[in-house]
């Protein structure tokens, strides 16, 4: 049986990846729903209200799964990472508790009004509730990012009684520059995800030649928001994030790029398999100087390779880290191309009739999900072997008295439960999509 830390890591990784598939959509959709409702109000156009109502139903199902899979995340800090919690709980507890007080109460109080309250609240009241949900879900995102940012680059803390950490400078901790950059990158990637999903459903309706009005709205908002956000997710936010990694986690950057030796004019690897034993990249295709430029702004900057760092500080899964980063960056580039092409067709008023493009839009909605998950894998695998960068190693953070057999039991349990949950989710969302948006006069109920 492998070492318990392996199972703790696998369980956390599995449960957080599964969980995040849902909030990534709801955070992005929350913004798009606000935009749809705002346009509906401004133009007094009921088609936009119907579009918002349709996506609110999807939002509701997704949000529910996000809530129930999110609660275990909060608990697993204590159950599986007790040594880490005792050491740094007084720091990260701040952001986790603030997420509860400032974000979760806001979201959970107004969720049922968003889903069921359109009739009771009227158009303006319902718009206000949509804004409350948007604010709540984006605040929630910040507190989680700030928690992660502390683990990536610990700031604002001091060492207290018994050697454990506490927050000494609250502003420095909460406004960690790492958190600000990561937040921008992360939230925009949520908008990319929602845009692709909205465009995908629009493309499906257009291909099926049903719900023509809604198909047009979904495609328009999906491609415009999709183009803007997929550009922003790369530049400036992704770029800023990469420069922070280059500055504070140079060993992670070397591993992400499969860079084994140092040097200037560092090349960016587009393709190639890292061979860690032989310390080289097999059959690489590379752009000379590009990595130096992206990391430090000039082509001649030296980018340090893994050879400059002690092996005990190397990320412990270099291959997976390399692929995660390259999948994210590659898909990010492809997504910009897709949305640019779709926007061009939209601008020329040909998108609704270009079946090829519609097929592409309908089928590529998994891309942002894969990019988001591999992006997070890059952040978390790049942080290894540290749990808190430079302060606490992952191997020292797990619960000392919880053994492998116990963790494997709960991991298997989660596997079963989340499989069923995933099937139910797809079933319910599939039904909503087949059922389609429903036009009503103002204030009428949504679903017949």
């Amino acid at each position, binding site marked *: 049986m492998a070492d318990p830390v392996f199972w703790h890591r696998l369980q956390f990784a599995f449960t957080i990846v599964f969980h995040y598939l849902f909030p990534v959509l709801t955070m992005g959709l929350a913004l798009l729903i606000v935009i749809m409702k705002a346009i509906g109000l401004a133009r007094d156009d009921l088609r936009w209200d119907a579009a918002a109502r349709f996506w609110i139903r999807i939002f509701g199902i997704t949000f529910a799964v996000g809530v129930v899979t999110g609660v275990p995340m909060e608990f697993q800090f*204590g*159950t599986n990472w007790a040594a880490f919690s005792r050491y740094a709980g*007084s720091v990260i507890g701040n952001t986790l508790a*603030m997420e509860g007080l400032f974000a979760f109460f*806001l979201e959970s109080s107004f969720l049922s009004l968003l889903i069921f309250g359109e009739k009771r609240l009227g158009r303006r009241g319902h718009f206000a509730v949509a804004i409350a949900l948007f604010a709540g879900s984006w605040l929630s995102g910040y507190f989680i990012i700030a928690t992660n940012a502390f683990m990536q680059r610990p700031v604002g803390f001091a060492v207290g009684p018994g050697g454990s950490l*506490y927050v000494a400078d609250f502003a420095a901790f909460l406004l960690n520059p790492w958190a600000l950059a990561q937040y921008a990158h992360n939230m925009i990637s949520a908008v990319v995800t929602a845009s692709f999903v909205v465009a995908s459903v629009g493309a499906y309706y257009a291909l099926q030649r049903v719900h023509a009005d809604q198909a047009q709205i979904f495609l328009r908002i999906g491609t415009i928001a999709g183009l803007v956000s997929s550009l922003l997710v790369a530049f400036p936010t992704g770029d800023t994030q990469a420069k922070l990694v280059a500055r504070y986690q140079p060993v992670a950057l070397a591993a992400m790029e499969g860079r084994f030796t140092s040097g200037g004019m560092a090349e960016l690897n587009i393709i190639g398999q890292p061979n860690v034993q032989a310390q080289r990249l097999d059959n690489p295709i590379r752009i000379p100087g590009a990595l130096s430029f992206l990391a430090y702004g000039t082509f001649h900057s030296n980018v340090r390779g893994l050879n400059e760092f002690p092996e005990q500080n190397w990320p412990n899964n270099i291959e997976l880290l390399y692929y995660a980063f390259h999948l994210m960056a590659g898909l990010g580039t492809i997504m910009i191309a897709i949305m640019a092409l779709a926007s061009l067709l939209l601008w020329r008023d040909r998108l609704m009739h270009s079946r090829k493009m519609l097929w592409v839009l309908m089928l590529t909605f998994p891309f942002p999900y894969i990019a988001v998950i591999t992006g997070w894998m890059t952040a978390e695998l790049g942080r290894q072997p540290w749990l808190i960068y430079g302060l606490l190693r992952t191997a020292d953070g797990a619960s000392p008295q919880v053994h492998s057999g116990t963790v494997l039991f709960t991991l298997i349990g989660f596997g079963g439960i989340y499989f069923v949950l995933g099937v139910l989710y797809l079933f319910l969302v599939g039904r909503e999509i087949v059922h389609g948006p429903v036009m009503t006069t103002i204030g009428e109920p949504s679903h*017949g």
Partner: protein
Amino acid sequence: MVEVWYGIIALMLTLYVVMDGFDLGAGALHLLVAHTNDERRQVLSAIGPYWDANEVWLIAAGGALFVAFPAVLASGLSGFYFALFLVLWCLILRGVAIEFRGHVQNDLWREFWDRGFSAGSILLGIFFGVALGNLLRGVPLESSGWFALTLFTDFSARPPIGILDWYTILVAVFALIALMGHGAAFLAWKTAGAVHERSTRLTWRLYLLIGALWPVLTVVTSIMQPAMWHAFLSRPLAWLLGAGSLAGFSGVFVFTRRGRHLSAFLGSTAFLGGLMLATAVCLFPVMLRSVDNAALSLTAYNASTDARGLQIALYWWAIGFPLAVLYFVVIFRLHRGKATAAGEGEGY
């Protein structure tokens, strides 16, 4: 400062018990008080707008414990590892049941989720009771500050102990009945028709049962933990809270008889809340009791973080807590009046 944070956490956990308690109780009674689809939707409409926000009290209280007493959170959550995952899975089942049930108009689908909602709620009531029982009885803390408990040993409440023994099961039975009484009082207030009639009758009966079990549990706990009984006798605040609890308990009967169901529900809230807070006062400063060596117990004093850390966290808490209370006032006002089942395909 340490005392303030002990109080904050006791207050937030108590709010969790009285708030999520009513929807857990309603869930445990779901199949009993509501027979037809319309009646069941009435129950779900009554708790639907609140259950998720109620559950946030648990998350927020956990977060506060994390900030102020990280050693208690770390030791407690990892020590009860197994039991906690059973709680988490029940929370998943229950939350999904409430939110998914109304999406498909099919009898089998509804029956499945009705049963899941009810089973999840009953099990959670029991688990939370077991957790309270474990805190009262104590855990086998080692000098490292860690402990590990298996689910059960010989059920004797003597070392080697497990999570389940006759004492913690007794507390769990009491907790489940108390939460069911609380849920019945809530439903009697928020529903009309047959569900209201059944809930009113059940409030009365469940509170009679509570009246029978409460003294038994008090006596048993005092025998097992004489220190708690002495703490109770010497702390006037505990008398006050105990008296509030007793007044709430009597209020349930008085107001239910007079048909004033909101007041009866508030009485039930005072009963549960007073009992929880009085228990916290009697336990202070112990947070995680050691069964065999009192010196190893984790207390508010030896498990708290640095005073400056506590001070800083108080700033955001003082802003966030009133905001949370405000949201509750808003949703209770927006959903005032009796809950009814909405048209087919709408609402819960």
